[in-house]
């Protein structure tokens, strides 16, 4: 919508026109100030863990496992060089042959959500489906982090009681 508005303004003679294409989704995902009836509602981006191990498809599994365990983590997200989510390593993948390919042991197409999604509805949805965590990505699929249901429930309990 905003690219059309920006072009329209230029056609009306405005010469300094800038387009914030990613708009509200990007703004709210980064916790920047808003106004209005829904301002202050907690979102996925408010409870996401951003410090998440990542690896590329071309890396050696044994090296990745060592790196992830050293960081005290039990999950690793497989991304492209641009940060787009390709898959996830967890559970049995960490006990596989160290020389196995990442491709052969990763889960493909993990479920993702957007950082501006309302946290309460999302957490209820995760609870109903017994989902413990969900990847949070931009609308273009780039990894932002992992939303753990226990973190989300704790955040809601502390900051937004029903």
């Amino acid at each position, binding site marked *: 919508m905003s690219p059309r508005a920006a072009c329209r303004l230029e056609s009306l003679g405005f010469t300094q026109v800038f387009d914030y*294409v990613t708009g509200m989704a990007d703004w709210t995902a980064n916790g920047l100030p808003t106004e209005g009836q829904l301002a202050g509602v907690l979102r996925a981006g408010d409870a996401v863990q951003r410090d998440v191990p990542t690896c590329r498809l071309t890396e050696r599994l044994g090296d990745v496992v060592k790196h992830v365990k050293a960081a005290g983590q039990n999950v690793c997200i497989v991304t492209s060089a641009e940060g787009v989510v390709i898959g996830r390593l967890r559970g049995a993948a960490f006990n596989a042959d160290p020389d196995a390919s990442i491709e052969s042991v990763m889960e493909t197409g993990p479920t993702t959500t957007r950082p501006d999604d309302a946290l309460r509805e999302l957490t209820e949805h995760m609870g109903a489906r017994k989902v413990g965590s969900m990847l949070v990505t931009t609308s273009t699929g780039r990894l932002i982090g992992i939303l753990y249901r226990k973190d989300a429930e704790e955040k809601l309990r502390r900051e937004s009681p029903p």
Partner: protein
Amino acid sequence: MPTDISRDTVQELVAEGAQLIDVRPDQEFQEEHIAGAINLPLKTLDATTASRALERSRPVVVY
């Protein structure tokens, strides 16, 4: 061609006096909008409304 900008640039431009315009419909604006933005829905954007709402001498950021 209008320039695509990031949120950091939005904040810089607004701090320097740019006008921040939310072009979504009124209902979405009422629900939530970027602090300090004004609403000029795309459907109502024409020479008259633009002249009334905006100053030509200052940069305009739309989203």
